[in-house]
Every structure is written in C-alpha cells, then in structure tokens.
C-alpha cells in the first residue's frame, strides 16, 4: 500500500492503518528498535508503542513519506527503553559501542545544551552529511542513526568490516573538525 493511502487511513481514523503500517514497516521499525534495545521482546514493545504514537500524531501530522517519520518515533522510543534498561544494566544491542564511538566526537570539549544550540548543531550535522559522498553518508547513518553493527554495515555496503571501521573513524574525525570549526565545541 502506498504511504499516501496509509496516511489517509490514519486521517480517517480507520484502524486498518495499523495493520497496513505493520505490514509495510514492521520489519524496518523492529530492526531499528532491536539495534538499540537489544532484546526482541523489548523491541516489539517499542514498535507497538510506535504504532500507537503514530496513531496519536496523524492527524494533525501528515507525513509525505512514512519511513523517516516512523523510524524517528521508533528510534526515540527505543532510546527511552534503553535508558530504562540501562539503569538495570540490561540489554543494549550495539548501542553501548555506538555511544562510545560518538563520545570521541565530543571528547575533551564542552558543548552548550540549549534548544537553540541543538538546532544549530543539527544544522551543522546535516550540512556535514550533505557534503559527504553517498556511500560514506550511508555508512554514517547506518551506524549512528540506525545503530547497525559493523558486520551488518559491511554486508549491506559489500565492504570488509575493517574498511567500515576505518571509514567510520575518518568520518568521526571529520565531523569533530567541522563542529570545532563551527564553534559548536569549545
């Protein structure tokens, strides 16, 4: 079913919208959630919560493309679940490693934490991503948005795991330099 048709089901408050979105994006959402929370059971709960959150946000939202909309909601819910589980030192998929890698981007530097700063930082990150060749950008997004494992990225991009790791290291360094140049880290 086309995204426009699914969105229309949400607008019409037709519960078939949930079946439709589960059928089309269930695997997509589950993989995002599982990469972050680690356990299949927790991932399924996150995905169900994402469907409910989508039901509650469309309307008034009317996304043109559902995948990024759903992916974002699922990701954020999974992050919340990770934080809850993390307090008890449970689960986590590849996320602890991903966080460890991201800490290198800001290591030893201070960054402000206001809404305005986050907006500017996001602008800088989007600009950084836009400047990258497509293949490198995909690797970055696979790792730091989707929290894919190095192995999965290597398989997806048809590269060696070592190649993926080296590319990620270079991308982190380049991002850090860009953020320093832009005054986002001091």
């Amino acid at each position, binding site marked *: 079913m086309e995204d426009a048709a699914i969105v229309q089901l949400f607008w019409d408050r037709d519960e078939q919208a949930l079946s439709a979105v589960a059928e089309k994006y269930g695997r997509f959402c589950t993989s995002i959630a599982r990469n972050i929370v680690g356990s299949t059971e927790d991932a399924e709960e996150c995905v169900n919560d994402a469907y*409910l959150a989508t039901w509650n946000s469309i309307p008034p939202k009317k996304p043109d*493309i559902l*995948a990024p909309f759903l992916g*974002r909601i699922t990701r*954020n819910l999974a992050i919340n679940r990770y934080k809850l589980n993390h307090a008890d030192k449970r689960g986590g998929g590849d996320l602890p490693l991903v*966080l460890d890698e991201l800490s290198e981007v800001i290591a030893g530097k201070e960054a402000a934490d206001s809404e305005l700063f986050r907006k500017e*930082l996001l602008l800088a990150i989007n600009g950084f*991503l836009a400047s990258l060749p497509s293949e490198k950008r995909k690797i970055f997004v696979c790792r730091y948005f989707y929290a894919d494992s190095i192995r999965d990225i290597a398989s997806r991009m048809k590269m060696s795991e070592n190649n993926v790791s080296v590319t990620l290291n270079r991308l982190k360094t380049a991002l850090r330099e860009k953020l320093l140049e832009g005054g986002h880290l001091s």
Partner: protein
Amino acid sequence: MNEELLFELLSDIDDAFILEAREELAVDTSAAKPSASKIRRIVIPVVIGIAALAIAFFGGKAIKTALDRRSGDQGKIINHSSGGTITHDVVSAEDAKIVYTVSVPTDRKVEVNGSFRPAFLRIRLDNIGDIPLLYENYFYLQHQEGEGWVDDFTFGDNTYSEKDRTLAPIDSITRHLEIPYDSIDLPAGKYRLLITIRRDDPSSSDAEKEYVVAAEFDYE
C-alpha cells in the same frame, strides 16, 4: 552535551539521509506480518476515564523556580465551560492561545503490586491561536498539599523530535505519558502536570520566551 544527547539529536537528521541508508525502502516490499495478537495489543484509547479538570495558566508564581525560565510576561486567564464535565481554561498571551487538558484513561491498565492501575496520562494540546508553538519534551508532575503544590516527578520523553512537537495554528495533538510506578507512588488525590511552551518562530524577538502552563487532574 554528551554522547547520549548527541545520539538522540541524530533522530532529527534529514529524512532523505534516513531513507538513503535503507535502499530497500525504495522498493515496495512487504514487511513480515506480525501476529494478530500483537495488533490487538495496541489499545486505541477511548476517553472513558476519570474526567479531567483542566486549568491552564500562564506565569503563575506557584511554579517552582527550577521551572521558571519565562521572560516575565503575565498572561490573562480566561475561563470557558464546555457544557460537559470538562472545563477548559484558555491561556492567552498576546497571540499565543492554547487549550491544555490532562486525563487519566482507565481502558488501559498495568498490574502494580497485585492491583491494576491506569497505565498512562493522556495529554491534549490545542493551539487555537495565530502563531506556531513548540512544547518541551519534559512534563512536570506535582501533587497538591494544602494550598500549595509539591514536585513529584519529571517525565522526560524523547519520543517526538522538535519538528513533531510543533503545533501550527489550529493544530492539536494527543500524547500519552506512561506512568512509572517503579519510580512514583501516585496515591489518590489532586495533581497537576506542567509543560513549557514557546513560540516556534526563530525570527521573532520573543523566540526564546517560554510559557509554563499547567493542567490539574484527579487521580483515583
């Protein structure tokens, strides 16, 4: 800013980048069908729960200083009656008008220490003004003690990115906050939930002005 916040921020990267990294999304392949029981587990909430008394005010001094990041404008409270069991108070400050209600649905419950209790709070925001508004990701719960209010719990919820937390004029949204019974007790009584709202207009001189609004509700 730490690595966790940076990871969270990455939720808001451009849609195109998110799609690009999943080429299979460009092909209309069906995802594995979940079992029917998992679909049924999603309860579409129906408001048959405890009636909510919504009082939304702007600039109240009763709000704790930790929340008090407003620029100082005091708004006017206008009372409306819906004619039913719920009373909506409208916050009006210049062109920012919002109706904010909190209710406690009883159609979805969780087991807590052998008894079943409401699973979440339902929040509804209606932007009935002329300017887009952005609400914060944090909701502050307080309970009434005597004539005053005491802090209970802060709900931090990163489900929605900034763009999804923006309410255009005439927009409305419903949110659900899961009640963390492992962190709070929530005995029966009167509560209020505060949120922070600001104008979503970076070009405005009032862009950083924040407004704290509260909605009271009874929890039984």
